[in-house]
């Protein structure tokens, strides 16, 4: 896994480009909003965690023409504040570079970025953002979240286990995604006769407590 920031990716300001005159005021507001959007997780009370790259992966799988495939996203960033004792104050935002999806099959890897699939030319990232957490007993939790990609924002449920040991924590979870919810492959294969409609996503993350 590589960090998005290492790849030159910068969060876009949501209003900066659309504000009316005076331009200076607009720019100032844009910068202020950007700082807020970047800094807001810091304001959360619960424990912040930093993902250990190389020990963490986001993968997806499915079936095409009867052949199983499995892929990973090589480039993503996560801002995680999670405390089992303070689920209300917990929050995770994961930004995934869609162009970094690789299955190891050149035919698939060349197709995924195209317009009918991830359409990276029009939306380079997928953003996963939690809205609520529930404890499911022992180390198990569930997060209500939204996943935004291809211009669509879809509610998803992410089930995971979280185990903290001092300054280290591990998280393993999965979400059952349906590609048509995001319009993925609708034009080429809208009924799943080629590519499975269900695309499970697996997440395995090692984290260290943020300083």
């Amino acid at each position, binding site marked *: 896994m590589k960090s998005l920031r290492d790849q030159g990716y910068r969060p876009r300001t949501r209003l900066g480009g659309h504000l009316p005159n005076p331009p200076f005021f607009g720019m100032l507001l844009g910068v202020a909003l950007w700082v807020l959007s970047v800094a807001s997780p810091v304001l959360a009370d619960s424990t912040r965690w930093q993902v250990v790259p190389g020990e963490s992966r986001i993968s997806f799988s499915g079936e095409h*023409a009867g*052949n199983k495939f499995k892929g990973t996203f090589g480039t993503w960033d996560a801002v995680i504040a999670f405390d089992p004792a303070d689920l209300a104050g917990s929050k995770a935002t994961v930004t995934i570079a869609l162009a970094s999806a690789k299955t190891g099959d*050149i*035919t698939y890897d*060349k*197709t995924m970025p*195209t317009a*009918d699939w991830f359409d990276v030319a029009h939306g380079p990232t997928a953003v996963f953002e939690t809205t609520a957490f529930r404890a499911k007993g022992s180390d198990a939790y569930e997060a209500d979240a939204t996943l935004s990609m291809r211009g669509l924002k879809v509610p998803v449920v992410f089930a995971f286990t979280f185990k903290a040991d001092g300054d280290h924590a591990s998280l393993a979870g999965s979400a059952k995604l349906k590609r048509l919810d995001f319009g993925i492959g609708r034009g*080429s294969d809208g009924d799943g006769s080629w590519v499975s409609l269900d695309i499970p996503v697996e997440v395995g993350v090692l984290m260290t407590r943020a300083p």
Partner: protein
Amino acid sequence: MRDSQRYTAAAITLHWLIALAIVTLLVAGWWMTDAIHHPETKATAFKVYQLHKSLGLTVLVLSVLRLIWRLVNPPPPLPDGMTRFERIAAHATHGLFYALIIAIPLAGWAMVSASPFGLPTIVFGLFEWPHIPVLAGLEDKRPVEAVFRNAHEIMAYGLAALLVLHVGAALKHHFVNRDDVLTRMLPFLRARGRA
């Protein structure tokens, strides 16, 4: 005189490479277009499709090379004893052969380019063969893909029929007319009965 009675080594090599590829393509194409619809053979059929595309493009390249080679190195003349009708039939068959072995892969390439699925063609898993841009950029690809798919299939059946005629004629020349029409295209042989 012996050399001018035989095809050149390059022409013989190209003929048999293309022949082998075409027979493979006809069998693979006939099998895979049905097998892709059955769950138990779908996975294998998909892989055969990818090989079919690679092999078909190989035939396209080899056939263009062969046509150029033929224009530069004219083939040996037909045997003296042939009637006017036989000569016309032979030339027409070969002309149609050249047209088909170039047109069929072109139609296949067009059909892949116009496929809504947009799968890239990776020649034998080594490098990407581009789509035909004007077709890959179409708004509504399905009807265009269907036209080329039908053309590809109809021409392939035509080629299979022509192949039967071609092999039959070669055998007739060899066993009935007892001329060197077959042997002059066989590798590792010398022309029969001429010195």
